[in-house]
């Protein structure tokens, strides 16, 4: 058996309901009635693990899904409703052994203290395979679910105006503070803080526990965490980014950023911008992965993939559009695209299966073997932790280092 010395390409899959196409639930393979059961998610993630993928991300949100950015759409012909992503990941963790589990967490309305211990605990229950994908919510109707703040109406177009950009900047600054608190809390216990010293009766060495004393413009948090430092030290932090403001969050706080280039030129520019921001943030010497996001329709021949896409568009009543590039074709063609994009500085990809029940198996049974044949993907899991799979070391504890 040949082994790849280092995985030149890394692959994640983004799971959302029955798939990313809004009519995906109508496909025979879709199992829409099982969406709210553990078994549905266990089967999908087991399939991803069979394909030796680095990790799966799970979408989430603090309101019903909508085809409009800033408001509910009142539609009844698409999947609506979802389970909490962190809990879903935790439910699947004991059933898997290698694959990383990266649920979405909304930073806008949640407590960083709760999120920090939740992801630390996901890291414990998965033995070092946890991460999170941070997302903001500027949606007024989601703010109304909490009643603590009121956000004015907004649309995707308005986000491009200076006022919209200002609002985005505030949300992402808050997200950066949120992640800072989450990360400090993970370090608030040194690894060897538990001593169980029977002679003195001390369970911990309290000098190895640290107040984080975070003071920001949005909130302050004292610490330490109630949960000891997780197995990976720092679970994986990831974020999706489409423009400068979120690129900055990726550069400041993330281990993996997901971006949406439509060609190699795009990809090169985005990667350059993120690297510049990374340097500005003083992280130039840290490994930061930039993954390309693609929506994929995969079939044995290109016509079949395109036909399937057309059939789903007809069912949906409109052509599917996405922030990410949409690919319809064969696994070999997709492998070509990924390798070409990979030369522009992307170190991996997060694929969004158009129909989870169809395109995920097409990734694991079609694309993965194709990449393996080309020596571009692992043939066995080579590490026990998610950071390990991504070539990220176990970081030193920021508080131990300064002690």
């Amino acid at each position, binding site marked *: 058996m040949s082994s790849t010395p280092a995985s030149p390409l890394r692959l994640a899959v983004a799971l959302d309901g029955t798939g990313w196409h809004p*009519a995906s639930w*109508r496909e025979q393979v879709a199992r829409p*009635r099982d969406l*709210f*059961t*553990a078994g549905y998610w266990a089967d999908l993630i087991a399939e991803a693990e069979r394909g030796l993928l680095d990790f799966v991300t799970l979408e989430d*949100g603090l*309101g*019903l*899904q909508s085809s409009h950015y800033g408001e509910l759409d009142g*539609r*009844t*012909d698409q999947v*609506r*409703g*979802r*389970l*909490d992503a962190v*809990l879903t990941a*935790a*439910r699947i*963790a*004991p*059933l898997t052994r290698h694959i990383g589990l990266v649920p979405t967490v909304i930073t806008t*309305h*949640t*407590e*960083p*203290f*709760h999120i920090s*211990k*939740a992801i630390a*605990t996901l890291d*414990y*229950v998965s*033995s070092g395979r946890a991460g999170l994908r941070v997302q903001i919510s500027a949606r007024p*109707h*989601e703010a*109304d*679910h*909490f*009643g*603590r703040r009121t956000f004015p109406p907004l649309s995707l177009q308005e986000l491009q105006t200076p006022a919209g950009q200002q609002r985005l900047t505030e949300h992402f600054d808050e997200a950066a503070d949120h992640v800072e608190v989450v990360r400090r809390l993970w370090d608030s216990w040194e690894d060897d803080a*538990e001593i169980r010293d029977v002679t003195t*009766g*001390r*369970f*911990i060495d*309290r000098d190895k*526990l640290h107040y984080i004393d975070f003071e920001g413009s*949005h*909130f*302050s*948090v*004292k*610490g*330490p965490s109630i*949960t*000891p430092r997780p197995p990976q030290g720092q679970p994986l932090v990831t974020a999706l980014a489409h423009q400068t403001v979120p690129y900055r969050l990726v550069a400041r706080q993330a281990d993996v950023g997901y971006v949406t280039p439509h060609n190699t030129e795009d990809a090169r520019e985005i990667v350059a911008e993120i690297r510049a921001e990374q340097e500005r943030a003083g992280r130039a010497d840290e490994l930061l992965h930039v993954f390309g996001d693609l929506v994929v329709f995969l079939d044995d021949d290109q016509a079949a993939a395109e036909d399937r896409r057309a059939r789903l568009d007809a*069912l949906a009543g409109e052509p599917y559009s996405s922030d990410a590039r949409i690919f319809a074709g064969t696994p070999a063609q997709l492998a070509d695209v990924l390798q070409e994009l990979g030369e522009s500085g992307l170190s991996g990809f997060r694929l969004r299966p158009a129909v989870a029940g169809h395109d995920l198996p097409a990734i694991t049974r079609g694309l993965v073997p194709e990449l393996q044949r080309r020596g571009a993907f692992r043939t066995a899991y080579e590490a026990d932790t998610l950071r390990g799979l991504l070539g990220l070391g176990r970081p030193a504890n920021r508080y131990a280092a300064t002690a």
Partner: protein
Amino acid sequence: MSKPLKQIHLAAHFPGVNNTTVWSDPEAGSHIEFDSFAHFARTAERAKFDFLFLAEGLRLREQGGKIYDLDVVGRPDTFTVLAALAAVTEHLGLTGTINSTFNEPYEVARQFASLDHLSGGRSAWNVVTSWDAFTGENFRRGGFLPQKERYSRAKEFLATANELFDSWHGDEIVADQATGVFLRDAKAGSFVHAGQHFDIHGQFNVPRSPQGRPVIFQAGDSEEGREFAASSADAIFSRHATLTDGQAFYTDVKNRLAKYGRRNDQLLILPAASFALADTDAEAEELAREVRRQQVSGATALKHLEFVWNRDLSSYDPEGPLPDIDPDVSDNHISKGRAQVRMYRDPLATAREWRELAAANHWSIRDLVIHTGNRQTFVGSPSTIARTINDYVQADASDGFILVPHITPTGLDTFADKVVPLLQEQGVFRTDYEGPTLRHHLGLAHPDEAKASDERAAS
């Protein structure tokens, strides 16, 4: 005709952060690794227990301005570990203690509804309240509440969460692939709540879960806590585990149900109980003493005395006599993040009483703390403990017990192997689960059935 035998309910409290947990025992394992939780949960399920119970603490305890280091420190996130335990068990109920002060109803409701879906209907919520600014320092909402408002917030929090759980009725998801109708109703999950503590509206995004709502526990012992339980809870996690205290509490709380239109069997009383189990009663007595000494080291004894004295007593010898000086009765307490200190409402009187006790018995500080502290609820051989538990339940001191072993994670193993079979032989404890959900185990109706039966009774 004699009264029919009551069926006993049993649950397992994970022994983590708790001053009865003996971490110094060679058998004591990790309090944070998932294997410990999985072992504990599987033991409880093997013994056909009703549920597993997790406590909460949102800030590490401090004493004298320093993190308290003598007990187990550190615990996982409750929701996350319960969701993972749902993967390694099939029937066991999963009860999490979740604070109503440092959370928001929308988020907590979707976490419990999700846990209920992911466990096939096994979730339960022990609703607790806090008010201290000390814990609030860990939260962006900061804050805290005036003590008198904590139950009003808790009640409104629970009422709001119930509105969210009930915002989906269970028949909205059609998912008809042929016609393309996913949802029957575009307004599924709609809610409006305008109250003193919460003013929220919109659409909840988790469909109706198998149990409709999680089973609701309440743990407070105050007058307000008892009323809250009588009006809104399915079960009480109480601390009245002796026969006479238990009976008094049981009668008091059950008598409050009628005014809320509820029957006696709609609220279960489940006290926490510790145990020392050995082959013979004599060996169990010896074990009980030994465990008490393990639980109360010299250092722990001094710290415990500080709860009452409210002073730094580190210069005292735990093997020596009690302090001559009186407790500091000012409001600013030396111990933070701990409910226990509120048990001593008159520290001067307690100090006087303890000095007299110690003098009369020639007790050191450590002896005194060992003797005045809680002895194990049940001490004896398997048959003694089985008999005592059954006697207490049949005498209406409780409807069962939430057992708190002192060793993680194996502290329940012997109980499961030796005591449970005796209760099963007596016909007072299930030999197998009779239904899939925690409501089945506890004999509680699904909220929809309960509502329908109330409506029938009223018509």
